[in-house]
């Protein structure tokens, strides 16, 4: 009889699934090999018993290729996770009520130190929602008929969403026609929508929302339809509907850390910051009052940078803010070459000048590219090539 070995096989597989409170991130690979072994061993008997309803076993369902997590299973995982979280908090001597995910991560890295380079291979304890990919509930009933009328399109949620949006579009057009039939349209100025502070959600986010794989064309069609909806006068319900598909975008200038102005023994205001370019690092101290003297590593800038281009780079932030002769700079720089050192000092000086200048001017400096660290570094040489890009001479034979 296949039943006893099937049940023990099931227990074994479940023990593999629920491998303790600490869940390794590479479980899915583990599962696949275990499931494959079991299947090879006991034949198609196991397939039948792993599904919830007997009807499904009659058809070869594509869903069986993905791991089907039943709802009970997920609930159990969540309970176990919460209990495990409390135990972990007790172990670490912290309050179980206010134990956040960051605390969990810290505790796990402390208790299970891992020397692996790949971050995704290290031990991880996260909420089951983040570990098990979201899967759809079974979409057909006991008689095998699907619930959703668009099931056979393959992407029921996507197409139903498109239908919904198009329905709203038609509804608005009908409303416009009715208003126009009553009399001439009153010129209503639209309230300016915050189109700048938000962006459309990207394809991956939409896929996550619908739990379906989409193609690029599907995504662009959807966004085009939403934009068409936005061109028409919408009421608040429709606006809210559209806002569901927009994500806010940060204002970049707020991210810039402005160094506070410090005062030295003589009462002079100064500001210190650092800058990097390629392998050069510079630290600049910009004084509030001065006459435009710049000293680098103890020497004057004219002697340190004999090339005009480097001196222009030093002048750039001051010239941009119209403060050419008004500040004194003392800086130290090391590493890199001539141009890299000039770039590093330019960045350090710009950052230091932020403290003496208004917020608007900081934003202008950012838009002029003065406050961004240049990420370009020397590209490594690859094996089988002469340099980073140059290949060896091609010989026919």
């Amino acid at each position, binding site marked *: 009889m296949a039943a006893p070995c099937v049940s023990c096989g099931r227990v074994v597989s479940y023990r593999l699934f629920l491998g303790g409170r600490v869940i390794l991130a590479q479980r899915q690979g583990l599962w696949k090999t275990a499931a494959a072994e079991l299947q090879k061993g006991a034949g198609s008997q196991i397939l039948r018993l792993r599904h919830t309803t007997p009807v499904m076993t009659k058809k070869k369902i594509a869903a069986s290729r993905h791991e089907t997590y039943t709802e009970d299973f997920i609930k159990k995982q969540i309970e176990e996770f919460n209990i495990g979280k409390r135990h972990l908090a007790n172990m670490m001597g912290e309050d179980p009520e206010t134990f956040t995910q960051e605390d969990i991560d810290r505790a796990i890295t402390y208790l299970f130190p891992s020397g692996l380079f790949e971050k995704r291979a290290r031990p991880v304890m996260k909420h089951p929602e983040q570990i098990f990919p979201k899967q759809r509930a079974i979409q057909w009933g006991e008689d095998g008929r699907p619930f959703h009328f668009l099931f056979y399109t393959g992407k029921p949620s996507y197409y139903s969403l498109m239908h919904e949006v198009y329905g709203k579009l038609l509804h608005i057009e009908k409303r416009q026609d009715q208003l126009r039939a009553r009399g001439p349209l009153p010129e209503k100025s639209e309230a300016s929508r915050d189109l*700048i502070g938000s962006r459309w959600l990207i394809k991956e986010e939409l896929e996550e929302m619908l739990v379906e*794989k989409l193609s690029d064309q599907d995504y662009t069609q959807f966004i085009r339809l939403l934009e068409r909806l936005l061109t028409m006068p919408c009421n608040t319900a429709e606006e809210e509907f559209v806002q569901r598909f927009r994500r806010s975008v940060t204002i970049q200038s707020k991210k810039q850390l402005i160094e506070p102005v410090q005062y030295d023994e003589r009462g002079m205001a100064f500001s210190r910051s650092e800058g990097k370019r390629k392998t050069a690092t510079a630290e600049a101290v910009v004084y509030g009052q001065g006459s435009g003297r710049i000293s680098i590593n103890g020497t004057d800038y004219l002697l340190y940078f004999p090339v005009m*281009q480097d001196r222009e780079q030093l002048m750039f932030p001051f*010239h941009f803010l119209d403060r050419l002769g008004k500040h004194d700079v003392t800086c130290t720089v090391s590493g890199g070459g001539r141009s890299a050192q000039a*770039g590093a000092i330019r960045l350090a000086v710009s950052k230091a000048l932020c403290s003496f200048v208004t917020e608007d001017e900081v934003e202008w400096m950012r838009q002029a*590219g003065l406050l961004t660290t240049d*990420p370009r570094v020397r590209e490594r040489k690859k094996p089988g090539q002469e340099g980073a890009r140059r290949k060896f001479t091609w010989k026919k034979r």
Partner: protein
Amino acid sequence: MGTVLKLPGVCTAGTPGRPKLLPKSRAFPFARVGGKGPGVTARITQVRWSRYGPEYRDPQVDKEHYRKSVDELTEEERYDQELKKTQLIKAAPASRTSSVFEDPLISKFTNMMMKGGNKVLARSLITQTLEAVKRKQFEKYRAASAEERANIERNPYTIFHQALKNCEPVIGLVPILKGGHFYQVPVPLADRRRRFLAMKWMITECRENKHRRTLMPEKLSNELLEAFHNQGPVIKRKHNMHKMAEANRALAHYRWW
């Protein structure tokens, strides 16, 4: 892992740069198919990639652009200004400043003159060229009479710009493969291609057709002045190109774009 946010393109662990999406061009798409076994979908390794992600915008270095008050801007400019606040900006390159003396055409020309990364030498040659042009024009000015003086242009930058504009070809030839033979088909050139050709011809001319003892600034200043007056070997080359295009005009229908 279907729900993980995946960045487009291939990113190996050691290179955190972003692969650039290649623009649609006639040229052969310069991408390499990574070697994989059969049964696995081949992924195309992007070759032209940049350390900046695709969301980064180019910096606007011009000082006057920011000094404009809010009333002077149009609706579009105001929208652009608001939009820029949310965008990431690249770092300004080392060759760009907010100086009034900076000229993008001169910078491009300097880079094209540069050999082996020796920007110092290239820049000094250009400054000496412009100085030589100015000196020659001033001598001519001093030697000329009052009526002629009005026609003599002394600003070396205007001479440079006008000379290169005079050297730009209007139409170019492109080899097109048809029936096993390459035919030279006349084709209208884009603006950037025309500027590039003018500068390239000027530099090649000055490097090759000069006496061993003449220095580059002297030769280049002579060529620029000749081109300014629509004479000289570079203008001749441009006219040759136009004549060949005219001769091959029967093949113009081979062009499909």
